[in-house]
């Protein structure tokens, strides 16, 4: 298998390596899998809770080392999707694999870090003890060094001995993020990790996420803070009503705000035009004898795109 085909596979959505290839060359199966397998791959995922349809055939892919933002209104199914990926919830239908293993399997869980939306650590335990427990369970050999490093990473270096019950909500959330990174997972699932954090904490997490990307760790970030997602994510997936309604790079989704040209006769809007068309538009207007006073390329934000897509445009 050449490098180009590997690249090709990585780019192609929803392609799992051919079973036949692996069977004929079992020695390379693991190498191929780890190179090719997406960190998270969900296809046609459905989950119903009695009468409630939480997921209605979601497709999602998080490539190896990719940082993907999962957006959607309250009740869209984001947390459900995340819980299925880490084996907390069983899907009603559809297929999910994590790093090539069925979601929820021991092999998948061994390489996944997860921060739940609503979580708690025992109040009697100290930050260090919480991480130590998770190191044991995650079979991490990182020891005290890893714990110190992780606590420093989330800005809790001074609080290693502090008991959870004596921590503020934001501090507990920081500890939760540190916990999700125990044992150097290859996929990290973060469900609203910054909801309780102060602005400095949010920046810390942003830098941390960038650091993870630098180390090739895939991240699925579930968040309502669109500006943050826009800053840090490679790709964004928007779900609504249990379905994927849009996906792409933040700038792709956010773009296409159109062009506005100020003329003597007033403001003229070209909503479908982009930056490239500005010279042509200006030339045409000047050709028609218009006087131009200003040109503005309207770049939308991810928030505008999001509100447009989920049909709850506030304007």
């Amino acid at each position, binding site marked *: 298998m050449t490098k180009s085909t590997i690249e090709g596979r990585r780019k192609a959505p929803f392609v799992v390596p051919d079973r036949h290839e692996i069977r004929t060359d079992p020695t390379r199966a693991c190498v191929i899998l780890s190179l090719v397998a997406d960190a998270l791959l969900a296809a046609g995922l459905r989950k119903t*809770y009695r009468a409630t349809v939480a997921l209605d055939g979601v497709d999602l892919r998080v490539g190896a080392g990719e940082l993907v933002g999962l957006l959607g209104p309250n009740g869209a199914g984001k947390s459900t999707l995340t*819980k299925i990926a*880490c*084996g*907390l*919830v*069983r899907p009603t239908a559809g297929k999910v694999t994590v790093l090539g293993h069925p979601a929820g399997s*021991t*092999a998948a*869980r*061994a390489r*996944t870090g*997860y921060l*739940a939306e*609503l*979580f*708690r*650590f*025992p109040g*009697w*335990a100290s930050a260090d003890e919480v991480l130590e*427990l*998770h190191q*044991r*369970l*995650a*079979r991490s050999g990182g020891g005290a060094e890893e714990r110190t490093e992780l606590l420093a990473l989330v800005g809790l270096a001074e609080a290693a001995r502090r008991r959870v019950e004596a921590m503020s909500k934001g501090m507990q959330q920081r500890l*939760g993020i540190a*916990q999700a990174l125990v044992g150097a997972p290859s996929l990290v699932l973060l469900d609203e990790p910054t909801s309780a954090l102060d602005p400095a904490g949010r920046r810390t997490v942003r830098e941390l996420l960038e650091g993870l990307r630098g180390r090739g760790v895939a991240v699925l970030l579930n968040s309502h803070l669109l500006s943050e997602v826009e800053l840090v994510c490679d790709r964004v997936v928007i779900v609504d009503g249990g379905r994927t309604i849009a996906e792409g790079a933040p700038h792709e989704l956010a773009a296409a705000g159109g062009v506005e040209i100020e003329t003597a006769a007033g403001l003229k809007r070209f909503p479908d035009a982009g930056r490239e068309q500005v010279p042509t538009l200006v030339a045409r207007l000047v050709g028609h004898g218009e006087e131009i006073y200003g040109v503005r390329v309207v770049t939308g934000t991810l928030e505008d795109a999001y509100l447009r897509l989920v049909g709850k445009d506030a304007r």
Partner: protein
Amino acid sequence: MLRDLTTIGGYALREAVRRKVLVVVVVLTICFLALYGFGSYHAFQEITRGGGGDGLGAALEEEVLTGSTLLGLAMFVTLFLGTVLAVFVTLNAVRGDAERGLLQPLVVRPVGRSTLLLARFLAAAAVCIAYVQIVYWGAVLLTDATGGYRPGNAFAGALALAAAVTIIVAIALLGTTLLSSTANGIAIFMVFGAGLAAGLIGQIGAALNSSTLEQISAIATWALPFEALYQDGLHALTADIDGVTGVIVQLGPFGGAQEAGPLLYPFAVAYLLGAGLLADRTFRRADL
């Protein structure tokens, strides 16, 4: 697997220590044993002061009657306290912890849910068994020290209590996979009360010679085998008392206990496995 068991079991035990559960239990147990010793001492004092009589009084060995009644009471209280402990150490183990978000960070680790449940079971059972043994043997020693009375088969009583409390831990854990904290606590105490009632119905049945009552009781105590185990242990304590004393003990509140026969322990093991498998199945299928 063994490593995970010790990690999670140790963690549950550490929680009990840090949460001061153990301190409270130890202090109150000392209080109970002190009270028991005091009561036992005075009970034996009373009968020696009363002296022996003639006729029926002479045939009645009062130390035996007093001692066996006191130990019967101790056994009842021990099982009750063991049940309280079992309920509280397992109260939140599954649903309660899941609702509070404590369980999810553990469950997503590469530790099987079965291992997690088994570890919680072993830790709770170890604590409860140790507890009932300490209280029970404390009472046996105090009865001997204060009145010189030793039961016929003290070990059978100890074994029965250990087995009964293990069954209660299993039922309580099964309960936590189905119900949230408060509901589960209430349910387990009601189940315990039902077992108790079944035992009493059996005794009344025996006294009235009503085979219907005895049958109802037998079915109910086997359905809740901690009661059958308790009765069997109680029976073993007094089975060797003969003569008039034996008859009177049988009529007393702790004497009419039913012997369950050789199938009881195999049945208890099967029951434990059944409850365990059901709890495991429920937990493994649960959306958390």
